[in-house]
């Protein structure tokens, strides 16, 4: 039997994604990584960063994709949902 981590529990992949996002958005007010299924490959990431202000949502999401390019390319991320906000 393979132990399945419950959704929302922080696993090693979640931590890796959060590290990549923190590195790309060092001044972010919020960086959150949710493992949607507990399987370590379906994620919902949220980034709130003042530097997003004035950028289109497409441009904001592109910055997040850029930050996570490696795990997207090597297939460790099967599905990625993104929420971005420009902050207060």
């Amino acid at each position, binding site marked *: 039997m393979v132990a399945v981590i419950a959704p929302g529990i922080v696993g090693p992949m979640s931590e890796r994604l959060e590290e990549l996002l923190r590195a790309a958005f060092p001044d972010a007010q919020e960086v959150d990584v949710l493992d949607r299924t507990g399987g370590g490959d379906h994620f919902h990431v949220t980034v709130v960063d003042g530097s997003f202000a004035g950028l289109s949502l497409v441009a904001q999401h592109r910055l997040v*994709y850029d930050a996570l390019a490696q795990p997207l390319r090597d297939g460790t991320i099967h599905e990625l949902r993104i*929420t971005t906000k420009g902050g207060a």
Partner: protein
Amino acid sequence: MSQLRDRIKDTIEQEPVVAFIKGTHEQVFCGNSDRALQALRGVGAGFAAVDVLPDPRIREELSAVSDWPTIPQVFVAGELVGGADIVQELAMTGQLEATLDEKLGQTWRRPGDERTVSVTDGPGLRLVPGG
């Protein structure tokens, strides 16, 4: 390969609203693709869909054209509006209708006018044996 890319570009430029999805408008095989189509339907937009599943090169060429790594991708008047998350968010805040109005006038209000088009066969792309 470049022929396929040209077909993708032509489709993006010629279709007022086009969604590249996994599946067809009648049978969607991905929750995110479905979210994007539901957002378009929610505002009463007509759209063309392109199924990326028949050939992995479609997705590769599309991402090269759009600089966007994931499926679905929704284009309006030749411009990438977003993936599922953005299109859904725009729909919820009323900005999707505003975007469609801005880019297409009132011509996009065609509820139920949905079809799936191919970028891999038809008159624009011919496979040459040994070519």
